């Protein structure tokens, strides 16, 4: 009945943010069991189930009366000291009958679970792993089983094997195995594609061994979840079947029989419904909670808490503010006087972005400032984890829930947009600032034609008719050089190639006639030849419209191709801010210099490729002093002791280094 329970939630972590957000699980990985023990509901449920099973197992020792014994003087009685839970209409002790009945009922449940797992695990594993014909046959069989209303077959089987509860529960298990087989198969399919499986295969490890040692343990999580789900379902089925007269013949005890007896006494003594129905309900709940807890424990390690059961809001509520920032203001945080460039399209001033998880807060972007002028193409360059994408998203105010701007201003058109209300902000988005993302295919709604999506954005910003919007959409497609624009407009995203889709995304961005275009790694996900085309397109559009472009990239080639100026980010900081020629020919920061030296074309044949030793520190590991200290060949002890400010060089460049002069003197030796 439940098909999807047990599958991991599909977490789509934005490709551009994936590197910037710190890993969810802390480096010390707690063991599975330990993590499970942190879940109170799961632990309680497990304890309860064990307790109940033991109690019923030891019924002959615990139960005050035999299950069939009648106290003829005390029929349909409520709880008394002699009968803690009262008696039923034949004077039998309810508590004793529940204890003895549990033996029969719980074994029936066990039979179902064993049948379900015993069939679905081998079949699901085989279908998922072997694929091909095996998979096809299994799928057909599963479809067939899932299409049959099992009640009919169960009734027929019950007619034959009257009063054999176990055979009937087994039949139910066969039907249940169908759905679980599907779940296991899906899990195996996703695991099979993983690299280490391919590696094991290439190494010659046999299929069976791979399945048993590598695949099955990963599947164990969903299996346990399904087992507990089916425990609950089986218990419910047993109760219902007893009502229909199937399964256990009177006067044998079972939980279903007790519930039925109680329901027949609804008019004389309704109390009995409580212990009987309550026991069944609570046990089913326990199975369900146990399943939930196991599922959460299994999939916790897979993702951060994006999208998990907490109070979920699509985006953070923003403060309402209409604050306009006067040009040339004093920044409260640093008490600095900030000069706002009148020609600037966008000014980012001391921007910090923090990542919140549970009780921790970590800065991922630290005191970033730069200016984007009219008509300029500014690059933000850095490697993974430098915070460049987060910076770009924060400008538009579309950070994921866990991130927030913790300090600084973002000034566009005289207004600080970082504190604007959502409604005002959405007016700005698309019409003053637009953005193009890295993965074009994911950025388009698969259910609508690309033409209609662009037209929608057009209508959002220009109050025009549908027809006019459609025409404008086709115009935009022509502007982004899509051939046969009218035909393309009728297509769905999945019918486009990567390059075409990115052009559509650019058209989407241009629809509101923005003054600023942010391009977040726009070509990273595209083929090399397409990359050049898209870059060329961006250049053309910039020349045609005079837009300012903020280009986020890790690729120096793109910077060289498109940008006028660039800021280099490292570990959340801006470390250098200069024109592109200056950065390429005369880098002042050791990191920039190191990156330039890594250019493979500088190396002679036969020499090892140069690289910067060490790795970028993660946000929660940022040292007090210079973050590049460990890897810097110009470092001195004083670099590590205090925060390095972003200083201005004599020729007006911004650079965050105490020894920039040393670097500058060297770079005359660097040539591109």
């Amino acid at each position, binding site marked *: 009945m439940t098909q999807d329970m047990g599958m991991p939630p599909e977490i789509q972590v934005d490709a551009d943010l994936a590197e910037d957000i710190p890993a969810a699980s802390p480096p010390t990985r707690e063991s599975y069991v330990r993590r499970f023990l942190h879940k109170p509901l799961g632990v309680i449920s497990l304890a309860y189930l064990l307790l109940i099973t033991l109690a019923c197992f030891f019924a002959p020792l615990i139960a005050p009366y035999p299950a069939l014994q009648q106290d*003829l003087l005390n*029929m349909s009685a409520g709880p008394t000291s002699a009968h803690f839970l009262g008696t039923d209409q034949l004077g039998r002790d309810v508590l004793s009958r529940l204890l003895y009945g549990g033996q029969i009922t719980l074994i029936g449940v066990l039979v179902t679970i064993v049948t379900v797992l015993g069939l679905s695990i081998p079949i699901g594993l085989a279908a998922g792993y072997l694929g091909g014909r095996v998979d096809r046959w299994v799928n057909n069989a599963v479809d067939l089983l899932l299409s049959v209303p099992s009640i009919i077959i169960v009734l027929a089987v019950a007619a034959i094997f009257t*009063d054999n509860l176990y055979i009937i529960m087994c039949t139910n298990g066969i039907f249940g195995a169908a759905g679980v087989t599907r779940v296991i198969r899906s899990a195996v399919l996703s695991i099979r594609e993983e690299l280490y499986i391919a590696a094991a295969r290439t190494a010659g490890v046999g299929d069976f061994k791979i399945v048993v040692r590598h695949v099955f343990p990963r599947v164990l999580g969903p299996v346990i979840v399904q087992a507990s789900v089916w425990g609950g379902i089986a218990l419910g089925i047993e109760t219902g079947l007893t009502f229909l*007269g199937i399964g256990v*013949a009177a006067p044998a005890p079972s939980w279903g029989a007790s519930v039925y007896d109680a329901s*027949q006494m609804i*008019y004389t003594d309704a109390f009995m419904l409580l212990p009987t129905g309550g026991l069944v309900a609570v046990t089913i709940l326990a199975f369900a909670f146990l399943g939930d807890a196991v599922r959460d424990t299994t999939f916790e390690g897979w993702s951060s808490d994006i999208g998990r059961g907490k109070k979920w809001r699509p985006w953070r509520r923003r403060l309402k503010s209409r604050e306009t920032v006067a040009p040339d203001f004093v920044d409260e945080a640093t008490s600095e006087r900030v000069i706002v460039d009148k020609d600037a399209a966008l000014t980012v001033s001391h921007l910090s972005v923090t990542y919140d998880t549970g009780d921790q807060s970590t800065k991922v972007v630290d005191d970033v400032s730069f200016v984007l002028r009219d008509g300029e193409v500014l690059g933000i360059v850095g490697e993974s984890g430098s915070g460049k994408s987060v910076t770009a998203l924060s400008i538009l105010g579309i950070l994921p829930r866990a991130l927030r701007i913790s300090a600084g201003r973002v000034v566009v058109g005289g207004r600080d947009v970082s504190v604007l209300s959502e409604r005002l902000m959405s007016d700005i988005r698309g019409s003053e600032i637009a953005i193009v993302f890295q993965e074009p295919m994911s950025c388009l709604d698969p259910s609508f034609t690309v033409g209609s999506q662009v037209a929608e954005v057009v209508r959002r910003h220009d109050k025009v008719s549908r027809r006019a919007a459609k025409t404008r959409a086709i115009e935009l497609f022509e502007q982004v050089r899509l051939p046969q624009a009218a035909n393309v407009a009728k297509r769905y995203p999945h019918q486009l190639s990567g390059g075409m889709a990115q052009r559509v995304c650019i058209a989407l961005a241009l629809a509101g006639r923005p003054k600023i275009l942010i391009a977040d790694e726009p070509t990273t996900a595209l083929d090399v030849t397409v990359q050049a085309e898209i870059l060329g397109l961006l250049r053309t559009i910039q020349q045609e419209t005079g837009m300012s472009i903020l280009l986020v990239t890790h690729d120096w080639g793109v910077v060289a191709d498109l940008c006028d100026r660039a800021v280099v980010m490292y570990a959340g900081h801006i470390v250098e801010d200069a024109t592109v020629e200056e950065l390429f020919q005369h880098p002042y920061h050791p990191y920039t210099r190191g990156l330039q030296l890594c250019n493979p074309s500088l190396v002679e044949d036969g020499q090892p490729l140069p690289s910067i030793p060490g790795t970028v520190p993660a946000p929660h590991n940022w040292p007090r002093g210079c973050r590049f200290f460990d890897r810097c060949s110009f470092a001195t002890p004083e670099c590590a002791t205090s925060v390095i400010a972003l200083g201005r060089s004599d020729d007006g460049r911004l650079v965050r280094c105490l020894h920039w002069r040393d670097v500058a003197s060297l770079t005359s030796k660097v040539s591109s």
Partner: protein
Amino acid sequence: MKNRKGRIRRVRVIGAGSVAAALALSIVPAALSSNAGAAVGAHAATGTLTIGEAGAPQSLDPSADDSGDGLYAAELLYEPLMNMTDTGKIIPGLATSWHYVGSGNKEFVMNIRQGAKFSDGEPVNAAAVVAGLEYNAKGTGPAGANFSGDSFRTNGDYQVIVTTTNANPEFPTTFSQRQLSGDIICPNALKNPSTIASNPCGAGPYVLDSAATTLGSTYTFTANPLYYNQKRILHSQIVLKVISDPTSALAAIRTGQIQVLGTNETNIQQLAPAKAAGLNVTILGPTSFLTVWIMDRNGKTVKALGDVRVRQALNYALNRPLIAKAAYGVLGAVDDEPATPGWNGWDPKSANYYTYNVAKAKALLKAAGYSNGFSFKILYITSFTAPDNGLFAMAQEWKAIGVNAQLVGESGFPPFSAAQTTLKYAGFELGWGSGDAIPTYNLVWFAKTGANAFYSSSKAAYKLFNAALGATPAQFPAKMRAVTAYGVANAYQVVPAEQKAFIISAKGITGLAKAGSAQPAGMNVVNIAG
């Protein structure tokens, strides 16, 4: 659970297997004991009566109906040859008069009513009756089983002669509405037998409204304008609803959707709530009794049971009021013979034959040489809960005198009857519906049937039985009672208790049943006596 628990299924054994020997008998129309009672007042046919029953009639074809739940449908649709009143008296139906010919009760003559019509307009005559009887005789239900060895012929337009190789002193009872054998189906319908069950046709007071009927769920009967005695029709429409769950049934009558819950729809759980809700509860006379029939009376597998003293000891050892309460609660009463008042097997002198006397029981055992007791197996059906409780109580009582009764339960009737034939069980227990004693005694004492698997028979008992079968009407009651007395005195069975049935009816609905009466004719939905 519907049909298994919560509904006491009475095994109405109607019709017998073959009676073994031919006997010399005299001519006699049978007469039954009667309790004089006031007739139901005659009403003009008005309104709709809605009845709730726990199970549907198995078939609307009387020859196939198993008669457990179908009696109401059949008696509305078909007119039998004779009618039985609620006091047990036999009055004319489609047959106006009858008599036996010769001695031995093997030839029976009936004069057929003139001027009666079937619901399709065809006249009722001897040819139609013979055709109907021949069809019923081939039936697969118990009705058919009544007809072993019978043949029928017409004698003129309005006389039918029944000839049988097996003596039957009670043809009028056999042909009454309670036994279904005498229900005559329209000759036109007999030409298409497969349609009878869905489009029944008879000469009864009602016809089936097929448009408003869903077989197995709701049956609607409308008054038959061609019925020959319109005064008997009390309601212009009768609706029978099948409600399998007793709690739902009680809800239905409390909300007014049903006006009557029939005896198969009522169980003891409903008694108190029904009264509390202001409904009329009419408790009838006993309609079934709890019995352990001892099959191995000749002691083939359990030697002890071959000794009458041992069997009597089993009877003396029982505290009958306690067992009655255990089995039937407030609806139970003490009984010690395999019959209830109102039927031909009932012997007033045998009531209270066995008093509760543990000392006597022990003494009898000792005299027979079983002071250390013995053990034997009793077969029962596990789902018929109420009488089973009585059985458990009996076993507990027998323990006190050292007798170990091992109770072996089967889940349903099919495995039960299969187990009977294995000869592993010295006795079996059932809740036994009251009825004609002849087929009962034949089944359990005399014939070679599953119930008498050991074929234990006694010449003396047989002689008495045959005498009753061949008796004249005046002698029959006494001779029949003598058979019962013999069976009780020789402890062919152990009967501790009987059960009273009851019906629940809505306020203002009265006259359907007489409190305390045996109601052998069922509820008075049709005013037979009027």
